[in-house]
């Protein structure tokens, strides 16, 4: 069954590519054309959900849309994809900004041509300064507030359970990754406010090593009762540690970021209070919708639009699992 689904998905993608190609060739009709330029693409499950959001929006609007990126990951190539995007004579362009200088020339030409540009997923680091790109606004998650949400949930659950958070630890699997550091910084801001000590701990993406490190950490810091994981592989390590040490579900207040089958199961088993989802579907869907509203009716929201933190916890995890199967999460 799965194999059939896979073949079908590949077929659909191919069919989509062909139809988009046909649509571009016959772009003289009334339909609008939108382009989305990104640093990541179809080989990553995360981007597949974003692309689905884009395609669903375009189907609703009866517009031609094109996703322009390397299949896996490519930053420097974005300049070339920006040239391709402008060559499509689009009504609007969405772009990620992992590096403003790579795409500056493209974005400035779009501004001269009066083509609206919206930043999605990865915000312009220079936004609000003189070096900001001439774009409208940002649609994406805020990692810092995701960390805040997790920390606040931990304090609320501890209060509800009639105990207090004595010490926390934020684990980080890739040191120096700005998104992960921002998640930890959000957690730490809440802990600093509450006056509760919080540690940082280096872990890895290997669950076996992570479980070993956690076991050592908790031996040395028995008073720590809150832990913050930043992704699926680290959560897998936490799960292994919890299973092998035989700790009770309620003895450790834990949260995570992003999603995986194991994270859902940990939420259902009570090992994780919640996980933060940045709702990638929204990033694709809303970008197209706002490009449409802006290019046709000059509408704009009052500021950036945050698609996260979206919270998945015991109350909605069952519904989310169904939606994941549908490709919306």
């Amino acid at each position: 069954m799965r194999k059939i689904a896979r073949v079908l998905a590949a077929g659909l993608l191919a069919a989509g590519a062909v139809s988009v190609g046909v649509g571009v060739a016959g772009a003289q009709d009334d339909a609008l054309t939108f382009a989305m330029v990104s640093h990541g693409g179809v080989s990553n499950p995360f981007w597949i959900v974003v692309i689905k959001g884009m395609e669903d929006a375009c189907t609703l609007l009866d517009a031609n849309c094109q996703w322009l990126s390397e299949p896996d990951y490519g930053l420097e190539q974005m300049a070339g994809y920006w040239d391709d995007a402008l060559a499509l004579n689009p009504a609007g362009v969405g772009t990620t900004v992992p590096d403003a200088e790579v795409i500056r020339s493209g974005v400035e030409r779009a501004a001269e041509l009066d083509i609206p540009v919206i930043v999605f997923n990865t915000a312009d680091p220079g936004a609000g300064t003189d070096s900001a790109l001439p774009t409208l606004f940002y649609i994406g998650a805020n990692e810092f507030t995701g960390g805040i949400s997790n920390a606040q949930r931990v304090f609320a659950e501890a209060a509800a359970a009639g105990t207090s958070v004595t010490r926390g630890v934020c684990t980080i699997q890739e040191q120096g990754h700005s998104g992960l550091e921002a998640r930890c910084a959000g957690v730490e801001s809440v802990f600093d406010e509450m006056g509760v000590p919080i540690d940082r701990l280096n872990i890895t993406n290997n669950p076996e090593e992570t479980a070993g490190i956690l076991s050592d950490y908790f031996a040395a810091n028995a008073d720590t009762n809150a832990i913050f994981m930043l992704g699926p592989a680290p959560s897998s390590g936490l799960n292994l540690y919890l299973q092998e040490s035989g700790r009770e579900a309620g003895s450790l207040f834990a949260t995570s970021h992003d999603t995986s089958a194991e994270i859902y199961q940990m939420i259902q088993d009570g090992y994780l209070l919640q996980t933060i989802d940045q709702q990638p579907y929204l990033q694709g869907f809303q970008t197209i919708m706002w490009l449409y509203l802006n290019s046709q009716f000059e509408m704009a929201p009052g500021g950036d639009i945050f698609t996260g933190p979206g919270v998945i916890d015991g109350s909605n995890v069952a519904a989310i699992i169904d939606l994941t199967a549908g490709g919306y999460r």
Partner: protein
Amino acid sequence: MANASSSADMLASGQYSPERKLLRNSKFTATIILLVVTGLLSLLFSEQILTGWLAFGERANISRRELNLIELLLAAGGIVWGLLSLYTAWGFLRHPATPSMEDYLGGRVSLRSPGVLFTTALIGLLFAVSIFLIEQVLTGWLPLGERANISRRDINTIEWVVVGLGVLGALLNGRTLIFLLRRDRRAWAWAQWVSLLTVLLMMMALFSGGIDIYSVVPPGGTALDNIPGVLELVALPLILVLSAISTYRYLTLAVDLSADQSIRNRLAKSPGAGAIIGLAALLIGFSLASSLFLEPRAIASALSTNVTNGIVAIGITLLMISGEFDLSVGSIFGASALIFILAMTEGVFGLPPMNAVIAALLSLVFAGFLGFINGVLLIRTGIPSFIVTLGTLLAYRAIPLVLIPEGRIIRYADYGIPDPFIDFSPFLLIALLVMGGLALAYYAIRQLPTMWGGVRRRIVTYRETTAPFRDVAIVTSALWSAVVTAAIAGLALFIFSGIADLLSRTDEMLRISFFDLANGRIESLPIFGRLTADINLRTGVFWWFLLVIVFQFILTQMRYGGFTFAVGGNAGAARAQGISVSRVKITNFIICAVLCGVAGITFVSRVGSVNANLGDGLELEVIAASVIGGVLLTGGYGSIVGALLGVLIFGLLRTGLVLVGMDPRVFFGVQGIIIIVAVVINTAVRRVRT
């Protein structure tokens, strides 16, 4: 030595022999700088004590109006030592050719000549420190081990060990001191040994003090903002390290080759010597820094976590000894782990889901095939293995990326299949135990008579030998033989009791989960009894150690091991001897890959899931571990036991750093520095070979 007799004439006539010019080279300049630093540090130390910034002894003395006895002694000692160091440095500078130890022992200069006096003083100081240490522990002023033991009526095991070491140190230093004063020629080698040991011991103390430095640094400041705090942690060991290094360097001037070489020869005999020293340093350093370190929980956790690295390191060591690299081990590990889990759940290569044992065999064959590709590519193209396996590192990574759709994590638990149980007859286990017993008996018959014969020979020829350490050699070889004998006896007992136990219940079939067999939690051990819940020791550790023993045996005792060394050391000579170089290399590539497969099976058995990036970066960790364990990057030298030690150093380092609460920002930095130090020690002890 031929020059020694003429030295006196040269000294008299003001001429310099070529030997004596040594004293003015760059090596000697470094020694002078070391001495000056030592002197200034000692004086700073005394100054801080005298001004009341640095407190010792009874801490209650807050007012700091008066100094207590310990502080007075330390301050006075610091001043004397500082002046002595500076005097020695000045003495070296003033004389165009400084008298060496040779001159002193030959009776041509007095004890007052700079280097000789400093050496004698250092040995005397170490003697005094040993005595002081014994006194402090025995009187209960220096509690060690369990701190809760307040009453100080009794002395615990750790303290007895320290007292024992203190007595040993006192004897060693006292004896050396007497030799020195009597101008006995043996003093030279003894003093070298003592200064080398002091460097190593004090490095450990320095290390355990050093990792605590960040705790005394004020927030936002640097180490300079709290000089007394930093000095308290590191000053004493640092002064001793620098002094001992200066002494060692002085003693190697105008080298008495027999003394210098005898030390290096002894250390260079074993490729793992550096790793053993490093491991001992880590164990001692971390157990001083954290009471949680030398606990069954921490050791078991470090062992269990490093089963994967440990098993892969065996293969890569074997391969590196035969002169080749394999950078693709991480990819092979990830790919074969994936094949194993898919074979049990979805089926692979068009086969239906299968039994765990068959799935394991399939993944091993698959891994071996990947290794075979590596080997054949290397031999057929002649491209260096670094490049070939860099290519396959990337190519093999495509296997999980293609097989795992959409970057999922494949989990055994998601398929709702029960754990794979296997049933087998107790007679199978009995047969295995009997085979193990036979292997043990073979080893005992081969090794024990040789070992004890060696001890006996040393005793019989005691009077004839002229080696400076003949008595030490007898004691250590006898002790080592006793340890090996005891280990063999213990294993034999274990095998007999196991067989007896199994024979009593031969009528039932044994049933065990394959996962538990490969890497499950061990609940009880023969001698230690039942393990408490916090001790997470896995069966994978047993398989890892077993593989180490097997491959160490192959490498050192079997013909194939000899071929491996020959191929790595000098391929041309090996070929001239009729060894098929290509066959040995390809076989080692296959062995290395199959061991990656074994590691994959143990990983899946414990973790139960595989993601597309599993094993990413593994290659550098295991190569580093092998090199720490004494393998030469150029091939032809190394040992499997060394690789085991290297992996242990890596694993215990991480455990220790987590336990002492090291700041994560400097975590990698500390790891890197310690790896470099370990390899430097290795190279230093091996230098005599080249």
